[in-house]
Every structure is written in C-alpha cells, then in structure tokens.
C-alpha cells in the first residue's frame, strides 16, 4: 500500500511536549487497571472475546500498518489455529498452553506457505491472492474430517493451565487471556519499534530502493507475514478455549474482512488503534445480535463511512486532531 498508508505514528519521534510521554503512560496505566478489574465490572466472556479480537486485529495491523501488506486472508490463521488448538486439546488431550502453542505453530506454517505464494506479487494483487488462498483453506476446512464440517469442533475442554490452574473457572481463564494478550502486545510493540521494523517500513515506502541497498525484501516481508500469522493464530487458539468451540465462521472471508474493519476503524498503523477498533466492532455486534437489525448493514455502513471520512481511524484521527497534537502525539500521514 505504498505511500498513502499512514506512517508509523507512535514510534521513533521524540514528542514535542515533555508531558506527552507522561500522559501516555498515565493512559496506559488506566487502561491496564480497567483490564485488571474488568471481570468484576462487565461480563467476563465479553471482555475475553474483545481481547481475542483485539489481539487478532493487532496481529493483522502488524502486517498492514507497518509493512503495508493488506492481507484479506487472515481468517485462515485465526480460524485455522482455533481448529488446531481445539483438536489438540479435545482429541489428543494436551494441556491448554501446549494446545495454544500448537495452534500458533500451525498458523505460522500456514502463514509461511501462503506467504511464499502470495508475496510473489505486490499491492492489490497480493491482497487478492491471500483472499483466494484463504478461501481455499476454507473449503479445506469444510471438507476435512477433523474439523467436523458445519458442526465445528464443539465442547472443547479448557483444561488446567500448567496442570494446576483450572481454566473452567471464568476468572482464571480471564487472567490467563489477559496475560497472553499483554505479552503478545509487548512483543508486537517491540517488533515494530525495532531495527527490523524500520526496514519493514522502508520496504513499504520504496521496495526497489530497499533491494538496491541490499535488503532481501522477500525475506523481510515473509518474516513479518509469518509473525503476523502466528500472532493471529495465538488469538484464534485462545478464542477456541474461551468459547470451547472452533467453527467455520472463523475461517470465512467475512472474518478476514472484519479484522480489516477493526483495524481501519481504530487506526491503521497505530498500536492501540486496533484494540479500540476491535472493541467497538465486538460491542456493536454484541449489541445488534439480539436486535432486529441486520448486523451486516451496520458493519457495511461503518466501513464506508470510515473509508470516506475517518481514514486514520478513531485513534489516528485523535492523534492528528488539534488536541491530540497539543498533547504531543504525532501522526504523520
């Protein structure tokens, strides 16, 4: 997505205002406190779902926002990992942490295969290929026996974490999910604010130049793609345990579209944008699930409005706004 993608915003620029970083840490602290207290304030399953999707969107954003690759096939990693984890936990009886690792590893392998094919093309072509490959994976899941087709893998046991923490207790499950989420976010943050992240950014800006400087561009992109796939897999694996389910929904192309929406809505290329985006979409769906109105219409309209008017997303628009800039956030678009 070459030069119109918003550039990395919260990275590497020294803020003009000294209180900016203070403010940012303050906000982070509040957010963290809220997350810690969340299961006592809101329906914990809902918060867990939100965290899963926030992680999924952040993983996706790692690719889109920081490498400029728009994948329309990320559902394959998310849903694929959910299947792998669910199958491992239910059929092989492995403990949950191993199950999730298996899911992540499976997603990473899928990511590697898909990346090897799709990364041969660029831009919109890349997008189409990921979409088609993910669709192929969808049909595979529809036919393969271990996924149980339309029924999905049901009643997946949550098991005992490290052999002694009973995850069927909702609070235990919640803090496990939260811990995984925080660790993953830290990994993502480090990843984009690293020398490697810098190279990814320059590849996005001018691929030929990066090659001529001696960077083997395909390997860097593949690295980011696999990383993103594995993290999406982490989100999918966790989701399978939270809901005790792995189904086709998570591998459909609509799911791939949904994660794009979350990221776009929150703010492409911002760290916390996808989290907000995911929160909003999940809340909206939750709200509409029991109303008469079709969810897709709302989702669709939100999508269009976002693309037309708030391309930088909630967080991005905030950073770019007068207040945001006063507070020392920098959003270079």
């Amino acid at each position: 997505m070459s030069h119109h993608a918003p550039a990395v915003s919260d990275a590497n620029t020294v803020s003009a205002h000294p209180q900016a970083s203070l403010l940012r840490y303050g906000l982070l602290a509040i957010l963290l406190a809220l997350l810690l207290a969340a299961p006592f304030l809101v329906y914990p399953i809902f918060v867990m779902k939100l965290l899963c999707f926030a992680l999924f969107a952040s993983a996706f954003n790692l690719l889109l926002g920081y490498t400029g690759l728009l994948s329309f096939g990320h559902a394959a990693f998310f849903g694929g990992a959910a299947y792998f984890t669910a199958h491992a936990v239910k059929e092989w009886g492995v403990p949950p942490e191993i199950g999730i690792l298996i899911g992540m590893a499976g997603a990473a392998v899928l990511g590697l295969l898909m990346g090897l094919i799709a990364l041969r093309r660029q831009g919109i072509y890349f997008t189409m290929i990921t979409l088609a490959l993910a669709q192929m994976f969808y049909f595979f899941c529809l036919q393969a026996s271990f996924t149980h087709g339309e029924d999905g893998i049901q009643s997946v046991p949550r098991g005992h974490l490290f052999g002694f923490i009973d995850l069927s207790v909702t609070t235990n499950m919640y803090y496990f999910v939260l811990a995984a989420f925080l660790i993953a976010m830290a990994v993502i943050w480090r990843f984009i604010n690293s020398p490697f992240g810098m190279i990814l950014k320059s590849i996005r800006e001018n691929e030929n130049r990066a090659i001529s400087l001696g960077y083997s561009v395909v390997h860097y992109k593949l690295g980011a793609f696999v990383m993103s796939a594995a993290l999406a897999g982490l989100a999918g694996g966790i989701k399978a345990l939270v809901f005790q389910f792995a189904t086709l929904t998570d591998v459909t192309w609509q799911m791939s579209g949904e994660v794009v929406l979350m990221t776009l809505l929150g703010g492409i290329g911002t760290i916390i944008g996808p989290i907000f985006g995911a929160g909003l979409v999940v809340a909206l769906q939750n709200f509409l699930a029991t109303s008469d109105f079709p969810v897709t219409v709302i989702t669709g309209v939100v999508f269009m409005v976002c693309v037309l008017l708030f391309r930088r997303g909630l967080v991005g628009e905030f950073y770019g706004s007068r207040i945001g800039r006063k507070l020392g956030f920098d959003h270079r678009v």
Partner: protein
Amino acid sequence: MMMIFGIPLQAFLGQLLIGLINGSFYALLSLGLAVIFGLLRVINFAHGAQYMLGAFVALLLLTKGGASYWVALVASPIIVGLVSAAIERTMLSRLYKLDHLYGLLFTFGLALTIEGTFRYFFGASGQPYPAPSQLQGAVNLGFMVLPIYRGWVVVLSMLACLATWLLIEKTKLGSYLRAATENPVLVQSFGINVPLLLTLTYALGAALAAFAGVLAAPIYQVSPLMGTNIIIVVFAVVVVGGMGSIMGAIVTGYMLGIAEGLTKVFYPEASNIVIFVIMAIVLILRPAGLFGKDV
C-alpha cells in the same frame, strides 16, 4: 456405451456443456471486474451485490411493474449502472487518489450494506423468476436435455464479452481509460474529462454485473445471497486470468467453468476447491496470471 476416462461419454459431454454455462457467468462477472480493476484499479467487492441487484431489479420490474424479461434485460443493467454511477460520483471517486486498497475496502462495505439491506427486506430465500416464454422448454441433444434458456445464456454472454472487449481494446476510449488509471491529473491536464470517464467505466462494469444478474435470475432464482456465493470464485478467476486483463478474464472464465464442471464428474468433493487449486498452481508457475503482465 462409449466411455471416456471411465465415465459414459454422454455424461462427460453433458458436464462439459454445463461447465460452459457456468463459465458464461464467470466470464461475464470477471469481465466486469476486470474492466473496473483494469481501469480504475479498484477491486470491486460490490460486484456480487451488483449482480444480485441486477436480478432483483428484474424481479421487481416483473412483480411491481409487469415488465417482461426482455425489458429487464435492457432496463436492469441501465438502472444498476445509474445507481452505481451515482455511488461512484459521490463516494468512490474520492478514493482514487489514495491507495488502491481503500477502493476495495469501500466496496466491501458497500457490498455488506446492499446485501444486508436486501436480506432484511426480502429474506434470504430465493424467489423464482420465470424464463421468458420464448425461451422455455428444452432441446434433446442426444447426450443431454438442454434447457433452451441455458443455451441462450451461453450465446448472449459470449456476445457481451466480445462487445466489451472491442470497446475497451479497440477504441481510443480504452487508452484514455488506461492512462487515467495511472495518472488522472495529467490526463485531465490534456483536456480530457477524467472524472466523467471513470464514472462511465464504473457504471459499465456494474451494468455488466447486472446483466449477468438478469441472465442468472431464471436459472438460480433471485436471492440476496446469490452474489456472495459467486463473487469469491470470480475473484479467483480474475487472479488466474491476470488481473486487469480483459481477454484473460473472459477466456479464464469459460475455462475454469469447464474445469469445475469436469471436476464434478471425476471428483465431486473437490469441485469447490478446484478453481482455487488451479489458482495456486498458476500463481506458482506464473505469478502474473495466465494473461497478466508483470507489474
């Protein structure tokens, strides 16, 4: 009975013909997508919705206005084309100067909205649309009974493909459009009204989809989901053909329709997946697609 690859010849021929019929829809739809993509660089995710709209407009013309199939065949593409032109004018056109992915995202949202709305008002189930009386009945070809209407679809789709191809590749219009894709501002500075040109192109692509929709209505019924079901396959067709290649879209459409038809005979379980498998193989061997230029 003569056998071919272990199945009766007549069944084989029948499936070949069926494949060609399905291929007609793939070809028409991927052609419209290729026109839009090739010239606007927008992946028109709403193409399936426009196809569905085409069918629905025909249905509504019939039920509300009593207009015949023949009227619908002309009117529906025009109506859908106009609506799409309005959407392009007011919304989509603001996105051209941005990265191409925004066009894709916008049309994705548009597709969700249109389909969701129709689903809300018309439910998900299909509504019958009768084939025109002139085209009812079937002919016995010996190896199969061919409904006349399906034969008509094949012929008409081929004509439409040919006409579009001529329009784009053999007239100056085509070169304006291709140039405008690359650098609209410059082309405009040459004195060409680019925004109008782009609007017309989008309308043409959408009208082609609607045309396919009207053709499809008597065969598949009219349902809000009909576009969703076919669009991803058509995307794969476009990728295999080489994105943006008009010829590629047409030829690949027919080819993959036939390939899919034959898979249903030899290994039905794979019939869903075969187009994607072909796509993966083609991409490994020729990343630009069968007819695509390396970009």
